[in-house]
């Protein structure tokens, strides 16, 4: 068994559902009995699960908090309050202050913004790379396929965290945008394998063959016929990719390889808070809590999506 079938089983990949193409010939006139679209079906299943709503509402609140929170708070992230240094949570400083009097609530908000932005860009970007590489490899087959699969396997040999650490001197002096791109650049391989195996089965389907024989160019076939049929998998991957990207960013920043001063992310805040985690726990617990709640909410959405896309995985037990 190859690794591909593996990942398929892991993601609970469904048999790809193909909407029948209207042929125009032999179709009775009058309003056609349109089958319920797959997208709407998934959406209906999704909105019936409580996990999805819990995750969506929590993540909505977190986004609103990160964006609007600073507007309703008197302190900024970098100013110092010399009268209240190293203080625990008070009515004035909600999350307390660090040893040089910077307000932790304001810092947590700024860090949360940065981590969210990186996650929301890097996750979907990784999925985009996976979709392009996977569909091209699966559709073209032959040498291209073999080379791409070989590259994927090569990238999977070493853990991506270690590769990112080795590469970190390259984006040391650059802005966080490059860190984001690097994270995305090392998080697409497994999904690309899934897309590839789905594409291989799709390319022999009649509607793809028809498009090919009509002379539709390859990029258009991929964009119009292949990608839409794996879209549900891609949406799940993009959602869970946000979690993975934020985890990668915070871990790299925590060990000093990611976001660097003067930028602040949840990872750098946690790195500063660790040494005092036992004596002044608020320095660690509040940023860690914000991070965990955010990631937990996103994974709940991802999990609900997965169940909505593939409701048959394991429920047909008597």
């Amino acid at each position, binding site marked *: *068994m190859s*690794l591909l*079938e*593996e990942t398929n*089983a*892991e993601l*609970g990949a469904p048999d790809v559902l193909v909407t029948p193409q209207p042929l125009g010939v032999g179709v009775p006139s009058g309003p056609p009995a349109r089958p319920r679209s797959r997208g709407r079906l998934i959406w209906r299943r999704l909105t019936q699960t409580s996990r999805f709503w819990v995750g969506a509402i929590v993540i909505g609140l977190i986004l609103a908090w990160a964006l609007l929170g600073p507007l309703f708070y008197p302190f900024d992230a970098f100013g110092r309050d010399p009268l209240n240094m190293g203080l625990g949570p008070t009515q004035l400083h909600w999350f307390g202050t660090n040893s040089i009097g910077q307000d932790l609530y304001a810092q947590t908000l700024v860090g949360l913004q940065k981590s969210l932005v990186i996650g929301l860009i890097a996750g979907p970007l990784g999925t985009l790379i996976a979709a392009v590489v996977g569909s091209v490899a699966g559709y073209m087959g032959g040498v291209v396929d073999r080379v791409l699969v070989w590259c994927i*396997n*090569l990238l*999977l*040999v*070493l*853990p*991506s*965290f*270690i*590769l990112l*650490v*080795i*590469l*970190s*001197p*390259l984006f040391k002096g650059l802005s966080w945008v490059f860190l984001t791109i690097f994270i995305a650049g090392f998080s697409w391989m*497994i999904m690309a394998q899934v897309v590839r195996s789905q594409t291989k089965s799709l390319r022999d389907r009649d509607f793809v063959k028809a498009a090919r024989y009509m002379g539709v160019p390859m990029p258009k076939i991929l964009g119009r016929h292949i990608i839409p049929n794996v879209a549900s998998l891609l949406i799940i991957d993009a959602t869970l990719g946000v*979690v993975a990207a934020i*985890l990668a960013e*915070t*871990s790299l920043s*925590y*060990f*000093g*390889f990611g976001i660097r001063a003067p930028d602040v992310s949840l990872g750098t805040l*946690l790195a500063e808070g*660790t040494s005092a*985690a*036992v004596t002044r*726990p608020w320095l*660690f617990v509040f940023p*860690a809590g914000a*991070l*965990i709640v*955010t*990631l*937990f909410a*996103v*994974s*709940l959405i991802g*999990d609900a999506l997965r169940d909505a896309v593939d409701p048959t*995985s*394991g*429920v*047909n*037990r008597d």
Partner: protein
Amino acid sequence: MVLYIFKRFINYFFLSMIATCLAYVVSSLALDPAAKYYGRNPQPTQQTIDNILNGLGVNPDVPVLQRLWEWLVNIVAHGSLGNGVNGVSIVDQIISRAGVSLRLLLIGSLIGAIVGVTLGVWGAVRQYKLSDQVVTYGSYLIFATPTFVIGVLLMIGATVLNGAAGMQLITFTGEYSAGLTGSWWDLALDRGIHLLLPTIALALIGAAGYSRYQRSVMLDVLSADFIRTARAKGRSRNSALVRHGVRVALIPMSTFFAYSFGTLVSGSIMLEIVFSFHGMGEFALNAISQSDINAVAGTTLFVAILILFSSTLSEVLYAALDPRVRN
């Protein structure tokens, strides 16, 4: 079967060697070992710097492919990975540290795998019951928590516990208590206690992933016809579940072990740093901050060999479980 495993081993061998070579090239391009000598006061002469860099085989003026070639020749001919910037042989440094890392990695991932598989089977059999829900949400919570946060939270917990007990129940900084003397048994116990928290952290990460995967595979197996057949021919429910269910569900798991091993390696590297172990994690961290190309290359080789062995092992497990592969 031997031929099959041998073929897979050769495949992984080439992949990991090429990955190591690529890592060597990338780290040579990303790191600048000369910079720290230019920053010294008084600045050494260009001649001295060149001599040092040439001695280490990391002079950026020599083409990187030539250096890679020399590095490889050195491995094959002398079994040497060159010297670090501190002048000590990389092989010696890795040998003195590898034990610390392997201890944590092997014990942690083994416990994680056993606990994860058990919880996964249990969750699948008791699907949607309270215990299943608790395990499911628990594993999501662990997924949502970065490795280092798990480590630090365990430290805070241990400190609270020590405070409550009024004595040093759990010690957790470093891999042993400095200056402790006593019998072999005392020293081993001391190391064991130091190993406790990082092992728990690593096992939690492993168990979270394995239990989710084992649960979904097990659910697929449970709805398969052969389970019903086994029940129909008179096997008890438990016997059908274990003999026919778990065994089949472990087949895809064996590949997942190999896949997830990389995550555990990076997880254990992070935990080593968090718990101030003098292992490969600290080695890699120092190597990057000191722009030590040979040390970085040595670390990646170490990791690649670990991955190579774990992949081969999972193939052996796969072949042992799935009779179709053996023929």
